[in-house]
């Protein structure tokens, strides 16, 4: 009886296109499309269009007085040629790679170690883990200002500590010495991003079934073997996601550069994202700024692809 009634209702819907449309809006394909269309329109308007605008700008000749118009002289790849023939380009790209690799490595390793540490259920573990998130909540500019004091050459806390324990005999000018300036920002960035890594990795660790470990322990596997054969393989998707997100966040990092070294001295701590801003808003060379941003978009797209592929497992699993 149920079946025959549904069949009648279906036939009735087919007969009337409007009611069919309304019905599909309620629980059919139309509703699905609507659900997708709203966020998609939002994304296109707020992310897609500026992105396209940025790419277009990198092929145009732009100065501050043509900023308000869209139709500007088309110069093809001139801006790209100009950017890549500047002497500072390769050092800055190298800095960007060092910054990204060192930041991610630091954030990931310390974050993973902390996450493993907090899986040992000791009293207060939850609270202390929560406290670590404070660093993630702090605005970059505030973190930068604090690290400015810590890293100050003449009166910095870090130099004082290092001197007291006998590691260094002379002050290190973290912000002004070309050998250290990039590392000053990396240290601050590792501090800023570690908690985020820790939380994501802790979630991944919690989802590994406990019986796997019990079985392995019964078979005589030691802690090290359990880590290599159970924890790491089971965490593959999480690690992929954390590293890709880390790459995106690190390439976005701007505040710390602005507040700690301003990319100096002599570009020794300058990275692509800060340089793009400098070109656009310090030298008013918007086209070159857009060119560097476009190159970075490509890099981030590659990272995003890796991220999406690594999370695909989770959806299927």
């Amino acid at each position, binding site marked *: 009886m149920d079946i025959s009634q549904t069949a009648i209702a279906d036939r009735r819907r087919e007969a009337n296109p409007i009611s069919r449309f309304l019905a599909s809006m309620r629980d059919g394909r139309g509703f699905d499309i609507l659900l997708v269309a709203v966020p998609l329109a939002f994304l296109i308007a707020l992310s897609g269009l500026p992105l396209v605008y940025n790419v277009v700008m990198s092929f145009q000749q732009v100065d501050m007085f*043509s900023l308000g118009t869209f139709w500007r002289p088309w110069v093809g790849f001139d801006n790209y040629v100009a950017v890549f023939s500047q002497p500072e380009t390769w050092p800055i790209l190298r800095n960007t790679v060092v910054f990204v690799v060192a930041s991610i490595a630091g954030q990931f390793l310390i974050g993973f170690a902390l996450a493993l540490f907090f899986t040992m259920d000791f009293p207060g573990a939850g609270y202390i883990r929560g406290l670590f998130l404070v660093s993630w909540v702090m605005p970059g500019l505030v973190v930068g200002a604090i690290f400015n004091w810590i890293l100050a050459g003449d009166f910095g806390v870090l130099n004082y500590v290092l001197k007291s324990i006998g590691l260094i005999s002379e002050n290190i*000018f973290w*912000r002004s*010495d070309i050998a250290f300036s990039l590392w000053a920002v990396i240290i601050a960035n590792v501090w800023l991003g570690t908690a985020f890594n820790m939380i994501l990795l802790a979630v991944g660790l919690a989802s590994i079934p406990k019986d796997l470990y019990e079985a392995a322990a019964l078979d005589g596997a030691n802690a090290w073997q359990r880590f290599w054969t159970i924890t790491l393989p089971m965490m593959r998707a999480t690690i992929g996601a954390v590293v890709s997100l880390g790459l995106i966040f690190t390439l976005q990092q701007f505040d710390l550069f602005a507040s700690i070294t*301003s990319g100096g001295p002599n570009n020794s701590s300058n990275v692509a994202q800060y340089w793009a801003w400098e070109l656009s*808003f*310090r*030298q008013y060379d918007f086209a070159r700024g857009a060119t560097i941003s476009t190159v970075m978009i490509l890099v981030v797209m590659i990272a995003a692809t890796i991220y999406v592929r690594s999370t695909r497992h989770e959806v299927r699993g």
Partner: protein
Amino acid sequence: MDKRLFGALLLGATMLAGPAFAQENVTITVWSLDDENQPALNLAREFSEMDNGITVEYRQIQFDDVVSESMRAFATGQAPDIIAVDNPEHALFASRGAFLDITDMVAQSEVIDPDNYYPGPLNSVTWDGRLYGVPKATNTIALYYNKDMFEAKGLDPNDPPETWDELVDAARTLNDPAANVYGLAFSAKANEEGTFQFLPWAQMAGGGYDNINTEGAVEALEIWKTIIDEKLASPDTLTRGQWDSTGTFNSGNAAMVISGPWELNRMLEEAKFDWGVALLPVPEEGAPRSSAMGDFNWAIFSTSEHPEEAFQALEYFASQDHRLFPEWGQLPARSDIELPETGEPLKDAALKVFLEQLQYAQPRGPHPEWPKISKAIQDAIQATLTGQMSAQDALDNAQATIDGILG
């Protein structure tokens, strides 16, 4: 009568009378970075409250945003009527026709007379022989020194260094790492401040922004390198602005500092020692003097719908120039104004030196692509001081870049 009630009555009366002169009332907008402790906001308010049918809408903008904000506004047709712009960036707007040519208005004006202004500031509002603005105020840099430290190290506190060699020698004598004291503080930061501090040295030695790799300019940069290498100044000089560098002088961690009159009020408050100000040391005795010229200019945007009224506002601002120093501690860009004594002996003595130094102040540019020229000079300073290039090579590079810009 209760003030509030009175206000309400007044408001009611204005509303009744409103339509009668609504047609004559003109609103002009003024953009400047001044807050309530600085002249522009106060003068704009006073002018707005005068019974002249002109209302001023004032908007405060941040230093870093002045150029980008106003460019965007101009490009989209939303520019204000009047803007205060940093003097090296004036030409950028004037050369592109964004600022109004006020040469003829000034010629008719009873209040503004170009002859009253110092040549440097006046030069910065001039483009192609025409006037595109009025200097708002001016400043320059000189050498502050700690007289107590001079005395303690056996130097004569009334005979500050006059040449570059004397400056380096004095810095060596005053340098005292054990006591956390550097001989000298200045700023070689990779922004406009670095250029601002270095150009006077190049100019005294016969160079200039368009001629930056002369022998004298190379020697100047080599002296900077000596000062950094011998740690006569903190290595953080490369990343620290003038305000923070002077802070180390005020706290007794540097015996001398190169900076401007904007420091005076803070120094009076913070410095717990006897200090003085001397003219910037010259390459050798008898060499020409030079200094940097800072501060902002007034300009009217060419898109203004009320240029007459906007110019009236500029006339009012200029007529109040005599109040700049006593009320807000800024130096008027004019030679016809006697600055009154403040009653603070240290400040008055410093003011005399700054006014003399001002005679030698030279504008940066004017050139429409100043930010790029300045960047080339900053790059040379930083490349040399970090030891990545010799002063000669670095300045040769800068000259090549600047030649490309000057065409």
